[in-house]
């Protein structure tokens, strides 16, 4: 870690490097050479050390949105600053940085408030550009523009990221652990910590045991939750979940006569204090809402559904039950503050990250990573650039 780059040779010039380019929906990514332009004002060009695959990369690769392709996917990564554009004081060549899709300008009303992490100066959207000036820094060898993805585009040896989408790490942490903190794990742990504020002794129910779900469990465990119930269709997730503090399991496919929420209400004598939806399905959101405790139960939605899918809640239940529904991006965490806190917690041997990495490979094997995740056969596949 902290390798010195011979950046004086490349600063200010385009860099030719390898990237995994998604050219068509549902088709394998193509490893090819691309040109990465130097960073413009308020941007940083980064040499990516490693990157991991998150289900949201797959979600967008499956959707065939017009104008989306060709694109460099990837949004979980860690890298080293190669060069900085004009007006950048926060970062310098050689810094270890984690790019993230959640912006934090640190100046707007929302960034300065401790009530939310949704930056209003750079609101989140599915953009195809680098950030502020609606252009791309990537072209292929034919000169065709390649789109950015979620302001990160980490499936490339080099990428260009806006400073509001970048967090510096002042200390050493293994890169394959660091990259996990830029999306999935921070979202899950953050949700238990920031969005829900799980108290010690609470009962938590987690719907969907992917990386987000396990990260919620890990976060709840760290907060002292007494009981963590995992709900999933795949019984193989259960054994794995124990490592993250999951104490009870519900196999959805075995719930014939009773609904999941009925079972949870029985198990917990009235419902869980906190329910987390980590699957991205409005039906599951409803189950989660029905499973949280009357009086004070909170349901937190983390999963990414199709944008226009409707979540339906009974009006009188909302009125009478005292339950709350919250949605949360990035678990309510502010990246520039909270990512370093989580990294430190890992280095202090509190936050467990090792178990999230089930496979490590090279960028060339990225399509294998896609297959593994689609089939539910992995948690995080980390791809090393070198």
């Amino acid at each position: 870690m902290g390798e010195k780059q011979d950046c004086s040779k490349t600063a200010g010039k385009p860099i030719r490097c390898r990237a995994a380019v998604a050219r068509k929906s549902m088709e394998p990514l193509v490893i090819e050479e691309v040109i990465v332009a130097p960073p413009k004002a308020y941007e940083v060009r980064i040499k990516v050390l490693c990157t991991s695959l998150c289900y949201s990369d797959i979600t967008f690769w499956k959707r065939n949105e017009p104008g989306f392709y060709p694109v460099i996917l990837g949004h979980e990564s860690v890298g080293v600053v190669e060069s900085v554009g004009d007006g950048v004081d926060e970062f310098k060549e050689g810094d270890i940085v984690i790019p993230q899709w959640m912006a934090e300008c640190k100046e707007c009303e929302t960034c300065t408030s401790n009530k939310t992490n949704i930056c209003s100066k750079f609101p989140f959207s599915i953009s195809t550009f680098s950030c502020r000036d609606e252009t791309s820094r990537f072209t292929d060898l034919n000169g065709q523009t390649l789109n950015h993805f979620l302001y990160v585009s980490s499936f490339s040896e080099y990428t260009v990221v806006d400073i509001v989408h970048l967090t510096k790490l002042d200390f050493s942490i293994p890169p394959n652990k660091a990259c996990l903190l830029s999306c999935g794990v921070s979202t899950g742990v953050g949700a238990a910590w920031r969005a829900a504020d799980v108290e010690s002794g609470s009962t938590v129910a987690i719907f969907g045991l992917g990386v987000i779900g396990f990260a919620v469990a890990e976060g709840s465990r760290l907060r002292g939750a007494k009981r963590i119930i995992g709900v999933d269709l795949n019984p193989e997730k259960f054994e794995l979940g124990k490592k993250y503090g999951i104490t009870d399991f519900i196999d959805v496919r075995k719930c014939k006569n009773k609904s999941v929420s009925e079972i949870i209400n029985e198990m917990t004598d009235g419902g869980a204090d906190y329910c987390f939806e980590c699957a991205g399905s409005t039906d599951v959101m409803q189950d989660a809402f029905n499973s949280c405790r009357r009086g004070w139960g909170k349901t937190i939605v983390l999963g990414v559904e199709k944008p226009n899918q409707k979540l339906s809640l009974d009006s009188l239940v909302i009125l009478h039950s005292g339950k709350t529904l919250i949605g949360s991006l990035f678990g309510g965490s502010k990246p520039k503050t909270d990512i370093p806190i989580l990294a430190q917690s890992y280095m202090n041997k509190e936050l467990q990250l090792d178990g999230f990495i089930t496979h490590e490979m090279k960028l060339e094997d990225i399509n294998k990573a896609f297959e593994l995740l689609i089939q539910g056969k992995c948690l995080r596949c980390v791809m090393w650039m070198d």
Partner: protein
Amino acid sequence: MDKTKKVSSKSTSGKPIRCRAAVARKAGEPLVIEEVIVAPPQTGEVRVKIICTSLCYSDVTFLNLKDPPACFPRILGHEAVGVIESVGEGVSEFVEGDMVIPTFMSECGECTDCKSKKSNLCSKFPFQISPWLHDGTSRFTDLKGETIHHFLFVSSFTEYTVLHVANVTKVDSAIPPNRACLLACGVSTGVGAAWKSANVEAGSTVAIFGLGSIGLAVAEGARLCGAAKIIGVDINPEKFETAKAFGVTDFVDSRSTGDKRVSQIIIEMTDGGADYCFECVGRAFLVEEAFASSRKGWGKTIVLGVDQPGSQLKFTSFDVLHLGKTISGSLFGGLKPKTDIQTLIKRYMDKELELDKFVTHEVGFEDINKAFDLLIGGKSLRCVIWMDK
């Protein structure tokens, strides 16, 4: 305690009382003033002589509804103040002569919810639109011996009623009765929603959908919490002038917004959305509009209005996930009756909480149906019905 107001227990304690009540006999029809028999209180119950009672829209809803949970004959009314006439076995919390406010919200004081600060939803005696007291029986019969149903565990449109102690709060007799009764439902719900459920902070922006008594009580609560901007949304612009007295600073006439949606207007007025939105009507589309009007990042929407059973609120998954907003509902403004009503009384006596402006009409018991006409016609906020007039 003024002894002239003390009920003579020697003559009635332990015996049925024959008195006047306004009975709802048929859906949609005026209440019938008739004599009824009120049984003595059983174990854990008290019998209360009602001093005055006020009309709340939920009474109107259950008079007009034909299907369950509506039922007939029934003694409606749930906002009231009275005096303990006699107590049942095992009751030590109250004595004859105590001034009390009955509440539809139970507080047993023993269950997990009652002991928790986070909930006011007693699980021992959960909220429901029940025709009975908690033991599944009625204390009312008419002169033919037919059972008359209770309403919301209170039934205050009668000279005497019987309640479980969990539904009774003792109050300082210094507060005038025609102010005390307001705290049994509407005003507490609205003020509580701003204070407890939402926890409105000083300087916040609040949007209130529906400027009936609940909406105005929310405004009053938000005003007391120091809200900087209180936007009132209603279909009836005549409500705006009155609403100013309750702290409402800006108005949106939802029938005159042209091409724009109410939420768009509120977002423009507040540069991003209101910090807190309250739905005080009971319509799903308004709840959704309120949700849309709340501020991205931290906007909280609180549902207070009572909709039709089965009504569904629909939110797009994208809005739920990406906007950082919260939605929850609140019964009785999140207040615990036995503690929080007294706090509101103190604030009234200290001249902070203003209650006078809620009472727009006062009538005698025989004119109770006039109160219904006024409310249904949108001509009143709270009409107080005095038993002894």
